[in-house]
């Protein structure tokens, strides 16, 4: 039997095809790539990174999308797991750029971001990373806007420590043996030495390490008052704290990167984490705006993750800049990022730091710092970075 198509379907198909993807819907989507660790020891960072971005974009989509030049665009997150493995990070970013055709990305992890520097710059991709690495925020990376406070900003908390806890004098540091760890410790030790602290030990570890006993024995022989675990992921920090306490260390721990103290406490034991100071992770008290975010996040993902508060920055910054630029061109969005002031969950934020970095591509906002008491990360200070 001969099969025929109704005329109206043929005409409709021809119109849609001739009109191009705009009407068909494909061009109405802004694709935003996320390359982040969704498994492995750094997953407590990567999961809220992806979730926060998705949640913000979904809420904008629910309101009809993002208005650019009088046209509504839906926001779509394309996320890949790089497990905090450099090779996987390179593969996922290449895939985002070459296969998925994204022009805007957010990559987590200093070593991973550094490995992708060339691909991102050559592809003229706008990057809003969450990463610590020397030279990441620099004039040579004009389209990279670091969306989380870095060691040059967060180490200002040591001043607060010095004023309130003058009995702390001897500092030991332990960090991952990669770009992230090297730079974090370089910046931190320079800052604390300037404040008059004595840095008695500096150690690096491979991210796969689980038995820290020998290296801790070496550190504790120097009798530190405090151990900084800057840039170390939650799983490693949990083991470091647990094993240091077993070896008899009674002092404090400090992490001025970002860490989920709930995950750390589960591994180290709640009592062992008491008194630990952290940046960028607050459980109590939370302002109304963040309580509202917590309710939305928990409704969607079931389990609350306080890391999502600060890791929502790339999405907030991107949306604000596109609104201001009224363009999807990466360069125009970058120009807008350089001047826009936008709301994140802690208040007003902008990109600055030109005096320190030589380019104003570092996010600046009042940074939250907490102290763990009874297993809960309590806000003790909100400090502005030393440079604007």
């Amino acid at each position: 039997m001969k099969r025929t198509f109704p005329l109206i379907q043929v005409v409709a198909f021809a119109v849609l095809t001739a009109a191009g993807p705009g009407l068909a819907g494909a061009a109405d989507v802004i694709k935003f790539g996320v390359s982040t660790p969704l498994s492995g020891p750094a997953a407590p960072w990567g999961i809220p990174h992806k979730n926060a971005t998705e949640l913000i974009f979904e809420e904008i989509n629910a309101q009809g999308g993002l208005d650019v030049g009088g046209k509504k665009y839906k926001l779509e997150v394309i996320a890949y797991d790089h497990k905090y493995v450099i090779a996987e990070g390179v593969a996922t970013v290449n895939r985002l750029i070459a296969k998925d055709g994204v022009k805007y990305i957010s990559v987590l992890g200093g070593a991973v971001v550094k490995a992708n520097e060339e691909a991102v710059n050559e592809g003229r991709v706008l990057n809003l990373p969450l990463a610590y690495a020397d030279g990441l925020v620099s004039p040579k990376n004009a389209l990279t806007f670091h969306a989380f406070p870095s060691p040059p900003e967060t180490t200002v908390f040591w001043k607060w420590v010095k004023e309130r806890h003058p009995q702390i004098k001897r500092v030991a540091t332990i960090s991952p043996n990669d770009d992230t760890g090297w730079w974090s410790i370089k910046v931190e030790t320079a800052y604390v030495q300037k404040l008059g602290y004595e840095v008695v030990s500096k150690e690096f570890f491979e991210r796969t390490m689980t038995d820290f006993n020998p290296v801790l024995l070496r550190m504790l022989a120097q009798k530190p008052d405090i151990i900084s675990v800057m840039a170390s992921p939650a799983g490693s920090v949990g083991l470091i704290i647990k094993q240091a306490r077993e070896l008899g260390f009674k002092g404090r721990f400090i992490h001025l990167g970002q860490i989920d103290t709930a995950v750390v406490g589960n591994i180290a034991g709640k009592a062992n984490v008491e008194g630990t100071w952290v940046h960028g992770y607050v459980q109590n008290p939370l302002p109304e705006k963040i309580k509202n975010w917590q309710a939305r996040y928990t409704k969607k993902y079931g389990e609350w993750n306080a890391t999502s508060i600060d890791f929502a920055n790339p999405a907030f910054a991107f949306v604000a800049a596109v609104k201001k630029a009224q363009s999807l061109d990466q360069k125009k969005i970058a120009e807008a990022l350089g001047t826009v002031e936008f709301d994140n969950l802690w208040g007003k934020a902008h990109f600055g730091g030109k005096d320190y970095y030589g380019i104003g591509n570092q996010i600046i906002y009042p940074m939250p710092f907490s102290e763990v008491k009874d297993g809960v990360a309590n806000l003790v200070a909100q400090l502005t970075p030393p440079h604007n």
Partner: protein
Amino acid sequence: MTAGLLVQSAVIGVSIGSIYILMALGLTLMFGMMHIINFAHGAVYMLGAFVIYYVFFQGGVPYFAAFVIAMILLGAFGYLVERSVYRPIKGGIEPTLVALLALTTFLQAAGYPVFGQLDKHVPPVFQGTRSVFGVMISVERLMIIPLAGILVVGLYLFINKTRLGAAMRAIEQDKEAAALQGVNVNMINGLAFGIGFALAAAAGALMAPIFKLDPMMGEQPLLKAFIIIILGGLGSVPGAIVGGLMLGLVDSIVATALGAEPAFLLSFVFIILLLLWKPTGLFGHAN
């Protein structure tokens, strides 16, 4: 490095060495019997730890019962692997290596959707710390030493004092001759797989309360276990014991004296030098 610190790092080295021995035992047994390197050993170690997580921590079953369950479950899994992987490819060394590597990749990849993406933990079974030669060590770490000792002695007695152990030794010496003497080679190979997997599970089950749990947790211990069995001599149980203790001491003393990075490098330098001096390892044979 002071004498006091040296003693302290040696004590820690013995505790680390005990962990290494546990990892290397099953690996060396399987090599000795079938001349295969079990790449799945690390993944089975991980599964042993997760059995403790679900059965002991989540399920409320007493720790030692969960420990035995882990050994039985993964021992049975080892037997199944022998039946379904090793036997069908007729014990070819290279195909078996590739198949076990594939099994490892599968188990690790499946681990994330099954066990979750975040690191898991198991609460300590033995609480508190004790001072040993001036170094504070957790009781749970100290308990590794006698528990590893029990497993080592048990394995030694099984291999040397039982008929099944005699059959294993016969296959190790000459498979064909053993078969002609009436030894059921397939059954004994299955048993060796089962025991090898059960020992890896025991190591994972003992480590679960000490470290954190994730699907990749077996990779680093597997690397150490490889070093140990090469150091001690492939297939030698006494070699695994001495190799494990030596590596534990080297790791601990060098890391305490020079830091973690030199320790990682020097453990490889140490093994290269030793193999230059004795290519078969400490207790290995030329054949």
